[in-house]
């Protein structure tokens, strides 16, 4: 029994953490947040991540990747979350995962090396506007009878403006779901900036009008299974990001309240605050466990992977929501100001919590798996 990261994985985490701390601290984050018209995709960070193999982590070795697992990838997601770092890392990794799982050897060869090297930014468009992540309420994009032309709108899509490759979930003329590749600049493709209050990301709607798209086919998975697999990986990587946000928010709050004095005593000595922090610590720790387990379950095709993914995303969403709300409350007024970093954490948690399925949606999924 070994429920923990290996020394290699811990070292990888430390490398990413130190790189981000050195080269992309909160001042750098602030610069991105305060430039909402910018592309939110700082090259220093992106190149550094590429240099460390953070983009190649899941890509097979034959396509210039590291051939590691989701357990390794979540290490990066978590550190980026803790650093509230901007950029299209998650979506690029997910686009590569779509290719790895569902693409033909030729499709993989065409795209994976560039994605692994950070030369191409990838993104995924899996949800129709105001739709559900599992496609129950229909998908936003449909394919015409030729099987090669896509129309419709997907939202929210992260970093569509800098993406060179879009992996789009769409429903074909027979009603079957599948993943399609759409290249930036394709005919009829337009991106509508939706702007989010989370300044550590850039988000838009992707609108397709008779746009050429290529079905991902010939890989291990296809159709709805492929969509589900990418969504599940998106859920786990987002959960890891949220856990990073939550843990860092809690640590900063505890550190601050350990010293800050009110009514003649450190705020952190007031029992009501201590108990809130203790409960948050337990919750965040459980979310940490859950993300590790879910990543491992997907890596090993564990029969309980469906449950594990839903547990991890539900728990991480709730933990991040709670920890960042508490951060604002227990920093007192200062945590509510623009100058303070609390709102980076708070807004990132709020925006990401519902991505790839909210806590409620994942709980309903758990009910379907264990009650029906």
């Amino acid at each position, binding site marked *: 029994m070994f429920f923990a990261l290996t020394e290699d994985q811990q070292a990888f985490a430390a490398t990413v953490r130190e790189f981000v701390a050195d080269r992309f601290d909160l001042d750098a984050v602030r610069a991105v947040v305060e430039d909402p018209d910018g592309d939110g995709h700082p090259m220093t960070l992106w190149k550094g991540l590429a240099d460390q193999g953070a983009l190649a982590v899941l890509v097979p070795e034959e396509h210039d990747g590291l051939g590691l697992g989701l357990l390794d990838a979540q290490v990066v997601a978590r550190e980026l979350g803790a650093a509230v770092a901007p950029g299209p890392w998650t979506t690029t990794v997910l686009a590569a995962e779509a290719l790895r799982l569902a693409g033909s050897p030729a499709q993989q060869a065409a795209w994976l090396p560039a994605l692994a090297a950070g030369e191409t930014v990838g993104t995924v468009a899996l949800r129709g506007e105001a739709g559900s992540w599992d496609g129950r309420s229909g998908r936003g994009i449909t394919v015409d009878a030729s099987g090669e032309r896509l129309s419709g709108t997907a939202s929210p899509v992260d970093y569509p403006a800098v993406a060179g490759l879009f992996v789009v979930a769409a429903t074909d003329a027979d009603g079957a779901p599948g993943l399609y590749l759409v290249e930036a600049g394709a005919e009829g493709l337009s991106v509508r900036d939706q702007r989010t209050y989370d300044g550590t990301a850039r988000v838009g709607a992707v609108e397709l009008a008779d746009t050429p798209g290529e079905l991902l086919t010939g890989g291990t998975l296809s159709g709805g299974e492929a969509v589900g697999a990418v969504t599940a990986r998106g859920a786990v990587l987002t959960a890891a990001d949220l856990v990073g946000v939550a843990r860092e928010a809690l640590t900063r709050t505890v550190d601050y309240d350990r010293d800050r004095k009110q009514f003649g005593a450190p705020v952190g000595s007031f029992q009501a605050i201590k108990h809130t922090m203790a409960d948050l610590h337990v919750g965040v720790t459980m979310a940490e466990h859950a993300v590790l387990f879910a990543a491992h379950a997907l890596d090993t095709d564990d029969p309980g992977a469906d449950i594990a993914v839903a547990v991890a995303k539900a728990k991480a969403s709730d933990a991040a929501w709670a920890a960042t709300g508490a951060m604002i409350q227990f920093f007192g*007024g200062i945590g509510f100001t623009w100058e303070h970093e609390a709102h980076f954490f708070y*807004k990132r948690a709020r925006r990401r919590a519902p991505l790839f399925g909210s806590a409620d949606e994942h709980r309903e999924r758990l009910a379907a798996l264990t009650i029906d």
Partner: protein
Amino acid sequence: MDLTYTAEEEQFRAELRDWLAGSIPPEWAEPGFWRSLDDDESFRLRREWEAAKTAAGFSGIQWPTEYGGRGGTPGMKAIYDEETVRAHAPQTVNVLGLTFLAPTVMAIGTPEQKSEIIGPMLRNEVIWCQGFSEPGAGSDLAAVSTRGVRDGDDFVVNGQKIWTTNAMHGDKIFTLVRTEPGSERHKGLSMMLIDMHQPGVEARPLKQMSGASEFGEVFFTDARVPVKDCLGEIGQGWRTAMLLLSFERGASGVGQYTEFRRQYDEIVEQMRRFGRSDDPVARQKMANCLVELECLRYHAMHILTQVEQGRDLGAESSMTKLQWSETFQDLWEAFDDVLGPEASLERPRPDVDLTPYQAQAMWSRSVTIWGGSSQVQRNIVAERVLGLPR
């Protein structure tokens, strides 16, 4: 139980409603209107509108007529709160002066203070700020570092205040200053009324997480304050402050309910727009907010009854604060929650601008902090209402 107002009060409502209908342009009712203006323009508009309201006889509802007030009943004040919200009237620019300072001056001010402060405030000729918090002190109002040293007929004041509403538009500020060197906590403080238009006073806006600046910081550097501009006895500033804060206790819940209930409907409207209104789990969350909102309404009627009966509300106002602030925060938490991924997008659709809602949701994080945090209010309820030991 008799939940009606008197005929006289209903007559007042009719008059007020008439006046409001004639004085508030329809565009003021749009969610994003006030945010679309710049701060100075917004303030100017509100200031002018409110001066007109005073001229029409609809300010200082419960104040004695000798002070320019209407001499009305608590019921009229509740009606005023309800109708102004219903008519989309803008926020009062002199809110802290009107709520706290004016009644304190009426109670313990010198004759000069009464004549110089109250009338100009009511007519918005002088905008008053409040300087209660200092950096890092949070809800601990006795943690006063700002100090005043006697120099002839003046105090020379140095220090800093934070979380000052309308700091950038204020003419004067009422604030606690430590006037006895070496004194601690509640002792040796004086309540000063300080002219902000002097070289020794600087105000800076404090930008909030939403990007707006409802608050500011005020810095005192050798600011000069005539001794006569102390309110209450010198060295007894804590007593003045406690008297001042006691005027928070009123029937404002009626207005808050009216406002929050409208916000509930606005969120429901967005739920419908984004196809969330049939989700049973989202419905539970919204309905639970409604439960708390309706309780706030009943509580406001209870408080109004207490006020009409002449009862001292005492620590009960901590319950009111907890109920309204936690309910308001929960309501906007529900907004973030039930709208899912759309909640964080400024324009999820080209025709939908959610920024006014998002600003409200972020503002809701502050209400459990300022004016005595929820933690402080729970202490008060536990100790002073339930009698649990310190």
